[in-house]
């Protein structure tokens, strides 16, 4: 009956699935940052693009996760590896908060500061890297934080297509009608989410401009 005794007894597997889970979340968040941050920067400077880009990211967000995993399954190269597929799907979900917060963060930089910088003769890239990004970074990170927390939760569903992660325990427990097994997946997942939230939150405060 005791969940913790079960987890202790199966600690090898708990650890393995936790690491798998972390891998799914880590890669997808990194990919989402690689795509989302530049996209957010672009739409902050090209107002005409912001509606279509944000709308697309919004639409992706509304697709139920199980359905998205299902849709992607028949895709040739992707469908052949559950990991690949899960990471792609999680990346797509993480995009919206990252794009939107990058956009909001940069648009939120005081217009006078940008004008002064431009008037002083900063090039557009100096303006971006020395002024806009440093001033937007805490807002951007809070987007990353949201993305990670969402991904930790969504990644449990990746087990349904065989991508592993803590969802394995949850699905197995559901099938066995055994709460201990469900919790052995749910508790570490919740802890991961809290930990990630805390860590990025700390980073966010450290980098917040005074």
């Amino acid at each position, binding site marked *: 009956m005791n969940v913790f005794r079960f987890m202790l007894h199966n600690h090898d597997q708990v650890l393995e699935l936790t690491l798998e889970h972390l891998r799914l979340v880590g890669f997808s968040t990194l990919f989402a940052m690689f795509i989302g941050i530049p996209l957010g920067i672009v739409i902050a400077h090209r107002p005409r693009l912001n509606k279509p880009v944000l709308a697309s990211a919004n639409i992706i967000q509304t697709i139920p996760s199980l359905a998205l995993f299902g849709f992607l399954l028949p895709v040739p190269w992707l469908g052949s590896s559950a990991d690949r597929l899960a990471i792609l799907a999680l990346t797509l979900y993480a995009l919206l908060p990252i794009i939107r917060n990058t956009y909001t963060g940069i648009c939120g930089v005081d217009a*006078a500061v*940008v004008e*002064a910088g431009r*008037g002083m003769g900063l090039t557009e890239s100096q303006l971006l890297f*020395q002024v806009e990004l440093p*001033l937007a970074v805490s807002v951007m990170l809070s987007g990353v934080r949201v993305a990670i927390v969402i991904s930790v939760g969504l990644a449990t569903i990746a087990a349904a297509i065989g991508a592993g992660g803590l969802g394995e325990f949850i699905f197995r427990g559901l099938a066995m009608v055994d709460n201990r097994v469900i919790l052995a997946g749910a508790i570490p997942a919740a802890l991961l989410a809290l930990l990630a939230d805390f860590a990025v939150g700390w980073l966010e405060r450290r980098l917040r401009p*005074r």
Partner: protein
Amino acid sequence: MLGGHMESAAAPPVIEFRDVSYQIAGNQILSGFNLQIQSGESVVLLGRSGSGKTTSLKLVNRLLSPSSGEIRVKGVPNTQGDLIRLRRSIGYVIQDVGLFPHFTIERNIGLVPKIEGWPEERIRARVQELLQLVGLAPAIASRYPHQLSGGQRQRVGVARALAADPEILLMDEPFGALDPLTRDELRREFLLLQQRLHKTVLFVTHDLREALRIGSRIALMESGRLITVLSPIDFLRSAEPLASAYVKAFGEGLESAANRGTS
């Protein structure tokens, strides 16, 4: 030979607007604007909001581009040559100051010298020199903008604009957001500074008192047109309707304040 000599005697204006018009989204902001500003002059653009003052200023450092006409800086159209070089050779001070909130005062003032590749030592010395010039304590260098008062921030704004020793200074209502006493103090200091530095200044304000104090000439603007350019003394005597309206409004303000005191 003689011709060459005469040419060098008559230096081109430092800033020259040649038949400049600016329109955006069907709105005519500036039309047929002509103005020459000689070296060492402080020309004030005076007018109400929407008269095109700020637009004129931003055309000089190419934050905006004219719809027609051209602006010459030191005799050369400002579209010739590098945009970034142009801006770094022109000091720019705005009402909201626009200090970088995440930089110390030292980094704020030293930013252009730094990206111009000055050695650290020289930047530090220059920052200290400028702080002294604008009447700030050396210790302020390590502070952040939010730790300063409005007057101190605007002083830093002026110091930052002067950092790379530009010949031209563009000032857009730099003292507009300050309380009256600080504003007066900064104006006085600015005049003293200008006596030493002899920059070519283009200064925007809607305040006649400020225009009279700062300007060697006052360019009066109304709905995108230049109405007249006068010295402060001539401005006070001018029969030009808009100019005299300004003077009248200014005088009435003083008068009514005085009357209220006696009654």
